[in-house]
């Protein structure tokens, strides 16, 4: 098959180029608003990518993914408050704790199916939300200000906005690559097989529970990393970052962008957050537009933006009418 430059590739390439060159624009204009906004988009795009691993590929509809954002963030916040600001301590610890939490929660949640799974992941993330609210010495409901971002060795200074943006972007791209490698590996095949027909996968000898649990832990750990980044980005953690509507936002990003597609969650994050930005500029009551819009996406654009692009891509070769196009299929 020839590498046709289809609409999907164009959008992804354009998006990555814009993301890579954005600091240049900022440096030229001195306008840091876009850089701050896009740092947030990149971080949440990474969180959505991690959710896509279990939601899109694994069929596990987790409604508690924002809990890991909170866990990652709180590890950074609490350590910083206790005077440990080294990123070499903070980051691995945040990942380990997120992963451990995912292991415990996953072992319980994955015993259930369907709507039980949705509700129980929601309930557990709500539990973490309440625990964070009750941490009186770490700000309780009001949250905790982080005075010093994670410290690394010299060239990497996270307090520099551009450096921090590029760190986030590199981690995002690495995450997308990791997820892509994972889902195309044997492991990923088992996960997707278990989504399509779990009973059959078990019948042919795969212990799918273990595979799904590992997948759940990987997704949780990756999301914990985006929590670390969010905490460094806003210099602040609060229970609000794991409010259940944040988990809902992550699901929206994944579905809006396109489930089970490599760049879908990033596209979804860009779309949702830019939409928020634009709509909230139009009216104070912007969610009155966003809500019904979500319903419309669910009803009419099930494959998300990536699905639409794919349709556009599939539609194009027909117009070109390459006579050899039909030969490959037999």
């Amino acid at each position, binding site marked *: 098959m020839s590498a046709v430059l289809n609409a999907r590739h164009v959008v992804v390439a354009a998006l990555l180029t814009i993301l890579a060159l954005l600091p240049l624009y900022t440096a030229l204009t001195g306008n840091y608003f876009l850089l701050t906004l896009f740092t947030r988009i990149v971080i949440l795009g990474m969180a959505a990518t991690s959710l896509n691993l279990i*939601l899109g590929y694994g069929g596990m*509809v987790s*409604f508690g993914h924002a809990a890991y954002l909170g866990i990652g963030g709180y590890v950074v916040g609490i350590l910083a408050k206790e005077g440990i600001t080294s990123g070499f301590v903070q980051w691995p610890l945040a990942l380990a704790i997120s992963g451990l939490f995912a292991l415990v929660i996953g072992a*319980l949640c994955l*015993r*259930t199916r*369907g*709507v*039980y799974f*949705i*509700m*129980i992941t*929601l*309930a*557990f993330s*709500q*539990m973490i939300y*309440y*625990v964070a*609210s*009750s*941490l*009186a*010495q770490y700000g309780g409901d009001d949250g905790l200000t982080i005075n010093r971002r994670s410290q690394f060795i010299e060239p990497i200074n996270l307090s520099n906005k551009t450096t921090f943006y590029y760190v986030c972007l590199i981690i995002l791209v690495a995450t997308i690559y990791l997820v892509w490698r994972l889902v195309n590996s044997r492991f990923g095949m088992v996960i997707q097989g278990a989504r399509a027909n779990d009973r059959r996968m078990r019948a042919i000898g795969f212990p799918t529970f273990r595979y799904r649990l590992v997948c759940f832990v990987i997704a949780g750990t990756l999301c914990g990393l985006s929590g670390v980044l969010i905490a460094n980005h806003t210099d602040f953690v609060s229970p609000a970052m794991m409010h*259940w*509507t944040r988990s*809902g936002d992550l*699901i*929206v990003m994944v*579905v809006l962008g396109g489930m089970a597609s490599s760049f879908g969650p990033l596209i979804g994050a860009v779309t949702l957050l830019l939409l928020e930005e634009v709509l909230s500029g139009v009216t104070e*009551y*912007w*969610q*009155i537009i*966003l*809500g*019904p*819009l*979500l*319903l419309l*996406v*669910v*009803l009419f654009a*099930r494959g998300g933006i990536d699905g639409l692009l794919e349709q556009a891509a599939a539609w194009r070769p027909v117009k070109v009418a390459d006579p050899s196009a039909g030969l490959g299929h037999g």
Partner: protein
Amino acid sequence: MLYFIEQCLNGVQLGMLLFLLAAGLTLIFGIMDLVNLAHGSLYMIGAYFAATFADLTHSFVLGAVLGLAATLVVGMAVEVIAMRRLYGRDHLDHVLGTFGLILFFNELVRLVWGPAGMTLPLPSQLLTAVQVLPGVYYPLYRLVIIVTTLLVALLLYVVVMRTRIGMLIRAGASNREMVGALGVNIKLLYTLVFGLGAALAGFAGLMQAPILTVQIGMGENILILAFVVIIIGGIGSVRGALVASIFVGLVDTIGRAFLPDLLRLFMSTNAASTVGPAVSSMLIYLLMALILVFRPEGLFPAARR
């Protein structure tokens, strides 16, 4: 001891409110196979309507009745406009669509009623406390909640198990096509069931309104507790919802009231006052986890289809 009895009654009262929400959720799930996150919005809308009508009519009872009727109408409208299109879809679609509805309703309420909350004042007759046991006084209104909710539960049981419409509802739950083929207007039936669930949620909202303030997002935290209830009780089972909601209400209330003191017995006061609130807010979820380990489908799993 008196304090303990009072807390038990508070727990039962919370449980009864949870039951009103959980019963609607579990009915809608059991019959239409629909996950409705926007159930909490209907709870909120019930409270807002009741507060508004009570303000206009200067009567608590009239406000409650009109509020209930208005929530029923809103619920049926939501079903006709949006929910109907979601039946038979993936649960993920339900989650997303109803999440959109939550955003919509929260913002709509902010637009119509403004960001400040409202209050629903009780009539003075209900403001007294009554002696429930020698020496134990309990607010009359909370007792009214317990009694009316029990009556509603009874009514619900009679309607579902003993009337023709209830029979149709149960038949619709087991085989939608067959009931439709026998000439029953299944669409209308579903609209009615959704309206009934909405009315139950609205009723819970307006009963709770005088105790807490009426505010945006008031339905969301209690909705998640209602989820815990139906996970524990078994989705689709009204009986399970009743048992589990009283259980959850009691454990949550008593845990919050006594756990910090209990921890103080074997911890320093300082440590107990830090750990206490955290553990007591986790208690109900830990309990849910424990039950799921032994009964992944809840205590009273609904019959398989």
